[in-house]
């Protein structure tokens, strides 16, 4: 019994020692899994080239990242959080409440969500409304909201292919799903009378929409086996599989880099990260990392992140981003 007490005491002591840490020179980053491939590329480059320790980067999702980021200032909290959507007013308010008052917002590029199928099929051109009708749980039929009756694409519109509706998409925990719901469901449903001007984001659960897990690679693999199906995932996976996948054009706009960058492609979003300026003194290399991230060799046209599927911002916006970084512009609630 004595031994057990001693062991417990030693374990407790170890934990005690671990809590007494010193000011660190290793940057800690959390946040979006969409931004993760780009950010981890920059962290690796940063560690290799500057001789600073490679920043630790965890993929926690945009919401999870902002929650950790806004927990407060100091040793245990992250210095940067990546996000595949803009920070919400409520989140920024929570940040400020917890003492995280000086945050700089950095916009790094865009990402498109593609609706793609196996390249063995004919190319398809969908309107946003048709896409919505294929995935929504309840749809208007003759002015009444009913459980989605569409089993085939041709049921929605005769011009669409005579194929079963079968869509592999991200689960509800995913940022891609959030963005899809916002851009491909809220937007069209707000314009449809039957929903009374309210946003409708419920996805059908009768088997036509299949939760395919967080791993987009799995969706891509399934599409080459199940050639009738469509998949929803990030643009970078389309770029990586040019021979096996073709994306549907949405509202007549093809899912291409320029169209996404210019904001013409309807299911596109911006990618961001947020820097805790109060850590800038304590974590010395913080702004070296940020400067490297926003440099033209990374986020510019033909930059390294472009090879990974990041869609560069228009030049003027890139300049704006760099200006904000240079003056460490403080994000105010009124900016949102």
């Amino acid at each position, binding site marked *: *019994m004595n*031994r*057990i007490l001693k*062991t*417990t005491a030693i*374990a407790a002591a*170890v*934990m*005690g020692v*671990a*809590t007494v*840490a010193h000011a660190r020179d*290793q940057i800690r980053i959390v946040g979006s*899994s969409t931004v*993760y*491939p780009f950010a*981890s*590329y920059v*962290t*690796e*480059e940063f*560690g*290799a*080239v500057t*001789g600073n*320790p*490679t920043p*630790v*980067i*965890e*993929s926690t999702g945009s919401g999870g990242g902002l929650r950790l980021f806004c927990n407060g200032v100091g040793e*245990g909290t992250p210095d940067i959080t990546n996000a595949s959507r803009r920070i919400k007013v409520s989140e920024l308010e929570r940040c400020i409440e917890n003492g995280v008052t000086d945050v700089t917002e950095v916009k790094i590029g865009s990402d498109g969500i593609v609706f793609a199928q196996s390249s063995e099929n004919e190319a398809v051109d969908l309107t946003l409304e048709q896409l919505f009708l294929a995935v929504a749980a309840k749809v208007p039929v003759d002015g009444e909201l009913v459980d989605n009756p569409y089993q085939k694409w041709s049921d929605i519109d005769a011009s669409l292919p005579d194929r079963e509706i079968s869509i592999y998409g991200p689960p509800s925990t995913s940022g891609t799903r959030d963005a899809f719901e916002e851009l491909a469901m809220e937007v069209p449903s707000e314009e449809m009378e039957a929903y009374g001007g309210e946003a409708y984001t419920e996805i059908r659960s009768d088997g036509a929409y299949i939760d395919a897990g*967080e*791993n*987009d*690679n799995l969706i891509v693999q399934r599409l080459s086996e199940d050639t009738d199906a469509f998949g929803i995932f*990030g643009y*970078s*996976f389309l*770029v*990586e*599989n*040019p*021979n096996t996948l073709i994306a549907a054009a949405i509202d007549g706009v093809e899912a291409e880099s320029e169209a996404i960058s210019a904001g013409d492609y309807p299911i596109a979003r911006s990618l961001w990260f947020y820097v805790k300026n109060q850590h800038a003194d304590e974590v010395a290399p913080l702004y070296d990392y940020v400067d490297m991230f926003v440099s033209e060799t990374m986020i510019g046209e033909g930059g*390294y992140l472009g090879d*990974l*599927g990041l869609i560069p911002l228009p030049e003027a916006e890139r300049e704006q981003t760099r200006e904000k970084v240079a003056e460490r512009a403080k994000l105010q609630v009124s900016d949102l």
Partner: protein
Amino acid sequence: MSQTFDEISSQLRKRHRRSARLKWISMGALGLAGLFLLWFFSDMLGKGLPAFQQAQIQVEVDYNEDASRMGRAALDPDLSRLVSRTFERMIPVQIRENPELLGTSETRWVLANAQVDQYLKGHRHKLNEQQVVLVDELLAEGRVELKFNTNFFTTGDSKMAEASGILSAAVGTVMTMLVTLAIAFPIGVMTAVYLEEFAPDNRFTQLIEININNLAAIPSILFGLLGLAIFINFFGVPRSTPLVGGMTLALMTLPVIIIATRTALRSVPDSIRHAAFGVGCSRWQVVRDHVLPLAMPGIMTGSIIGLAQAMGETAPLIIVGMVAFIPDVGASFTEAATVLPAQIFTWAGEPEKAFVEKTAGGILVLLTILIFLNATAVILRKKFERRW
């Protein structure tokens, strides 16, 4: 009631048929399991073996003035597109550190990028037509080659598939397991010794016993949540470190070790204890000098199996932040690290096709280690097992 010979023999035949049928069904089950295993291994080997080879390319590196700012300038413009960025980006750093390099040049083998590598392995690649022609030419001249991928075992993770390796994850696994063992082994063994040799058999100890058995069956992710709540949020242990990962996995391994130790202790016959008591040993002397040494092989086997289980675990480590991108090989228990299964998980999510073979290669390495550990457990048991 008398039965004719025919009736009896027909019954007998029926019974024999039934037992033969059962035999075939059970053999079929075994065969099916074997087939799955074979399929899994051949799939993993087919996908994973290419990971142990990597394309290299022979280039002329010209350390000129431009190269000290932009690494690419040191290489032939056509070839620079085929060379891994991990090499090219280090050129300015090298020149800065060794200024005497400036103005010299050398011919050397360097890592080719993942596209060249995938092309040579016959996988899908993104080289354009001119580049394919160029690579074919270089191949004919013997200036591009698939060589043994030492990088895979000597570097950490990288975003560039050609340069990524498992060393940082392997070191992380070793450190995490050390922490797990240092905590779970003594606590587990001492708990079991107390419960088995000292504790009275009452309601309270029965309750503890039931709880330990229950803990062994709890989904591992719950231990992750416990680790997050207690170790990170309450004690402030740094996130993503082998320390917190090891402590979390120790919680998971504890019941396994306790149960194995208790079984081992119970299999030591009472006659040993009685004999020791008979010559006047105290209870503690009996346990320390007689029962524990005799039970040790069983305890070791149980601990190794518990450890192997912890080694293959990812779910609780996601929660305590050990599924992270770690290119540097860690050196301390309080530095961020990742472990082998987490590394495999990370690679499986990468969009680049070149990571498919890395994923399978990582699985092969993990499987080898686990088979080795389990084999050690079996050998220990065979060698030291005593029948009473």
